[in-house]
Structures are given as structure tokens and as C-alpha cells.
């Protein structure tokens, strides 16, 4: 296992990503699109932590992503912070958002969790949409890309420079994610996904685990969103819309939920596929939709999930998820008193 397919994938993917600035022109894709893939992936990974590991449908994660974007953008626009400060402030904004909505979400499971996460996500969306004086409303908000802010270097990164910075953050996030899901905490999340009642009957307050999972998920999405904002020098309300959350979830399912690299694969197909197809036709959604249907039929556990399952190393499947779809009284019992 140690030197099995997982490690090979890791090394291969990192090499491929490091060469992306040289490879992407070959398929007529701008490096900023590959950059977008990585940041989209951070949001997809954050959705994967809840969907693939904890067993909760995260249909509001775009709001955390957008909080990262607006958090970074607003602090650049109004407080003229540098790149690193903007990244941290954007991420903190997402974490703060999760601290506010988390206590409500933590008591819901299955479809109720999904619906409530949509509702909270839309609240943030409408704030960005309506609060025109500050956020620019529907038109969005421009801001300049700040200088880096490391010691005395007043450097502003562009193109490949920005990409490699993103790549460093991305690889660090993947490593952190892997350590997290393989830690005792992460294993407990997987157990919650499979059978939350039993987790509770092993003496663990599952809500506490779910709450922390929501916070970590939001932080990750916020980090991706902050960098995404500075990649585009722009923030717009639709980033927070629940359709955007749906795209993240879609990418996770496409690539393979409950796997480390599935979100990257799904996001790459989604973002690059959209970029290529939309350069030929306005009807790109039809083709992406068809691709999605084909993948779900051909790879019921997502592309990577199904491939790993064939090699017998898939850690998870989605078969028991239906059982989690309704709220069990053993979990609800906590909240009557």
C-alpha cells in the first residue's frame, strides 16, 4: 500500500501540475484556467470533506468560497492590504461565516442539512447582491492585485508566478487534507458517515465532530475563494449562489467523493471542459451535462473512486448513504431537552 497506486498518483499529479505552464499551451488552454482549476479544487475538496467523508450534502459551500473572495477583495479595496494579508483575511471571513451558521447546520442531517446549507448560502449571496454601496451588487467589484508582502519584496505576481504560488498552497492543502482524513479525527468522520448512531454509542459526541468538519471545510473553501478573487481581481455575487455550490458538489461526484484526488480530477474536467467547449458553442452546459451523465453511468463511484475500487483500494463507497438520508432519533434526542 505504501508505495502502491496512491503514491504513484501523488507524484505523477504533482509533476504534471508543475509542468502545467508549459503543457497547457499545447491544448490551447491559458495557465489562468489551470490556476482556476486548482482553486476550484480547493472548494471541491472542502465539499468532499463533508460529502465524501462525513456524509453530509454541502450545498452552501460556494458561500464560504465567496466569503473568501469578498473578504480578500474588500480588504484590498478598503484597507489596501498586501497579498498574504488579503489571503488570510479572506480565509478568516469564511471561517467566521461558518462559526455563525455552523451551530445551526450541525443539528441537521441528510437532505435537511442540504436544504439549510442552501438557505444560509443564499443569505450571503443576497447580502453581496443587495449591499451595492460596498460590494458593487450585481455588477461585482473590481480591485487591484496587491503586492506579495513577503519581507521587503514589493512584487506582484502574474501568470506563471501566480500559478506557482497557487500550486504551493494547493500541494500544502492536499497534504494537510490527507493527514486530516487519515488522522483519528478523520477516521471518526468516516465512521459518522457510515453509522452515526454507533459513533454516538461508542461515547463520542458526533455533533462536535460535524461542527469542526464544517469549520475546516469552510476555511478551505475560503482559502480557495480568496486566491480566486485575486486571480481575477474581481468578486461577483454569483460566486456565492447555490448553483456554484452545486458545481463544486458535481465536481466531487464526477471525480470520486471520499478520495483525495477525485475533486481535482472532477474540477479539471469541469473547468477545462467548460473552457474548451464554450469556445465553440454557447450550449456548453448541454455537453457538460451529457459528460456528467456518461461519467455517472460508467463510473458509479466517480471516475477515480471507481478506478480505485477496481484495484481494491477504495476506502469508501456510497452504498450506505441512503440510510443516513433521514435524521435518526438517536441523534435528534440530544436536542429535545
Amino acid at each position, binding site marked *: 500500500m505504501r508505495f502502491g497506486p496512491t503514491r504513484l498518483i501523488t507524484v505523477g499529479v504533482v509533476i504534471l501540475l508543475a509542468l502545467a505552464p508549459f503543457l497547457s499551451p499545447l491544448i490551447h488552454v491559458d495557465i489562468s484556467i489551470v490556476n482556476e482549476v486548482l482553486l476550484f479544487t480547493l472548494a471541491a475538496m472542502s465539499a468532499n470533506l463533508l460529502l465524501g467523508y462525513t456524509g453530509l450534502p454541502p450545498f452552501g459551500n460556494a458561500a464560504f468560497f465567496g466569503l473568501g473572495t469578498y473578504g480578500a477583495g474588500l480588504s484590498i479595496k478598503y484597507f489596501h492590504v498586501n497579498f498574504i494579508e488579503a489571503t488570510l483575511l479572506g480565509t478568516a471571513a469564511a471561517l467566521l461565516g461558518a462559526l455563525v451558521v455552523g451551530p445551526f447546520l450541525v443539528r441537521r442531517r441528510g437532505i435537511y442539512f442540504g436544504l439549510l446549507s442552501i438557505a444560509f448560502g443564499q443569505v450571503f449571496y443576497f447580502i453581496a447582491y443587495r449591499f451595492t454601496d460596498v460590494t458593487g451588487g450585481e455588477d461585482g467589484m473590481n480591485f487591484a492585485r496587491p503586492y506579495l508582502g513577503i519581507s521587503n519584496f514589493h512584487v506582484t505576481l502574474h501568470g506563471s508566478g501566480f500559478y506557482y504560488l497557487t500550486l504551493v498552497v494547493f500541494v500544502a492543502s492536499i497534504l494537510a487534507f490527507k493527514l486530516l482524513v487519515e488522522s483519528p479525527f478523520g477516521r471518526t468522520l468516516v465512521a459518522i458517515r457510515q453509522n452515526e448512531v454507533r459513533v454516538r454509542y461508542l461515547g463520542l459526541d458526533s455533533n462536535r465532530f460535524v461542527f469542526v468538519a464544517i469549520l475546516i471545510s469552510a476555511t478551505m473553501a475560503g482559502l480557495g475563494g480568496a486566491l480566486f478573487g485575486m486571480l481575477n481581481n474581481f468578486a461577483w455575487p454569483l460566486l456565492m449562489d447555490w448553483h456554484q455550490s452545486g458545481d463544486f458538489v458535481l465536481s466531487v461526484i464526477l471525480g470520486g467523493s471520499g478520495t483525495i484526488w477525485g475533486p481535482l480530477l472532477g474540477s479539471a474536467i469541469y473547468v477545462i471542459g467548460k473552457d474548451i467547449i464554450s469556445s465553440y458553442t454557447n450550449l456548453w452546459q448541454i455537453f457538460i451535462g451529457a459528460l456528467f451523465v456518461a461519467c455517472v453511468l460508467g463510473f458509479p463511484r466517480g471516475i477515480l473512486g471507481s478506478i480505485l475500487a477496481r484495484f481494491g483500494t477504495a476506502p469508501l463507497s456510497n452504498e450506505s448513504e441512503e440510510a443516513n438520508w433521514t435524521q435518526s*432519533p438517536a441523534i435528534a434526542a440530544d436536542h429535545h431537552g
Partner: protein
Amino acid sequence: MGSTLLLEAQEVSKYFGGVHACEGVSLGVREGTIHAVIGPNGAGKTTFFNALSGFYYPDRGRVFFDGEEITRMPNWRRIERGMGRTFQTPSIFPELTVHDNVALGVRSKAGLAFRARPPSGEQQAVLERRVDELLGFVNLVRFKERPVAELSHGSQRLCEIAMSLSTEPRLVLLDEPMAGLAESETERIISVIRGLHDRLGLTVLFVEHNMRVVLGLAEMITVLDRGRILAEGTPSEIAANEAVRDAYLGKEVLERV
């Protein structure tokens, strides 16, 4: 037979809409005994059990564990206090291995389940020893690395018993441990339940409707019928009880004909 009550239910009632699934049931489980709750299908045994273990809370009445009121205590905290339970349909993590199923409980007890840091080598060794000990007790060591979903129903139940022991309880609640098992598997479970009492010194409360098993295993029996207590006593008292015979034994005999 000890004299202190480890678990005590006072007038516990649970209603589902208009259905009185459980009506004013009182019961005391003495420390160190094997106590059985029996009754025909629909007698409210599992409802009562769920109210005792915090699966849901009773609508009326109170529950005490080791002298402390736990009527509305969250179920996970009851486990911390020293309760363990199994379910009619084994409640396991089907895709995880037998080892990982039991290890989660061991980590929980050791206070390691919430950590992002992996356990130290020394901690890990202690955990592994404990997992082996538990699997040895239920005789599942050979299935250690197999996903639980691949095991037979009886072995899944044994795995669940090992899981319920992983948090080092003083009282184990077993909900129909023999349900759906073949004769040979029933014998295995019976000897494990005996072991809980004889070898580990635990207090056991179990629900069962197989009268033969109950009379051979329990020191004290509570008979439920239609949500109420019909009788309580030692196996010989219960076997001789007219009301029990009419309501329960007679019916079972008739069912077998």
C-alpha cells in the same frame, strides 16, 4: 448477587402518537447480575430499551444509572458513564474492517478519537493490544482485517458486542442478541454473554423472546406485555407464573404447533 442497583427505571412511559408502546415500566438491575426483559412481539421491549439507553427520551418517568439521574442525558455521555449497547440489527461500520470497527471505540475510550495528530507509537501499541484482547474475547481475531460487511450475521453481532465492550462499560444492554441467528451461532452468543458476566464481571441487561435461552441465562427476568410489566422474578418463579404462561408461554407453544 450484589444489592446495589446499577440501573433503575422508574415508571418509564413512551408514546408514539396514540400508541402507548411502554407504560409505567419500572425495573432495577442489580450490579453483577444478568437480567432479562422478555415479552411477545410488540410488548415494548425495544422501546423500553431505547428509552434506557437514550436512543430517545421517555415521555414520563425517570432513569438512573449508578445513582445518577440520566433520564435526558445524551446517549454518548451515557457511554462515557459506563453503559454499552447493541442493537437488534447489528449496528456496525459495514465498510470498515473488524479491527477498525473495534479500534474506534478503543480510541474513544482513550480520548484519542478527536485528535488530528496520529497516536504515538506507544499509544498505538496499547490500542492494538486492547483491540486484540477484545477480538480474542469474542473469538474474531481471524477476521481482523476483513470488512465487517463480509462477515456472517452471527459474527457481525459478536463484532458489535466487542465494540460495545471497547468503551469499557460496567453495564451492557443487548437488544435481542439471538435474533435471526442459526442454532450454532446462538450457542456462541450465549457463551459470550455468560463470559461477560463470569469472566469480565459485567452487569448484563438483555431483551429476548426465546424463552429457553432466557430461562437458562438470566438470574432475574422482567416480563412485558402490551407495554406494561406482567411479572418479575427468578427463572423458576417466571416459569411457574400463571399469567406469564397464559400471555406468553401458551402463545409461544401454540405458535410452534
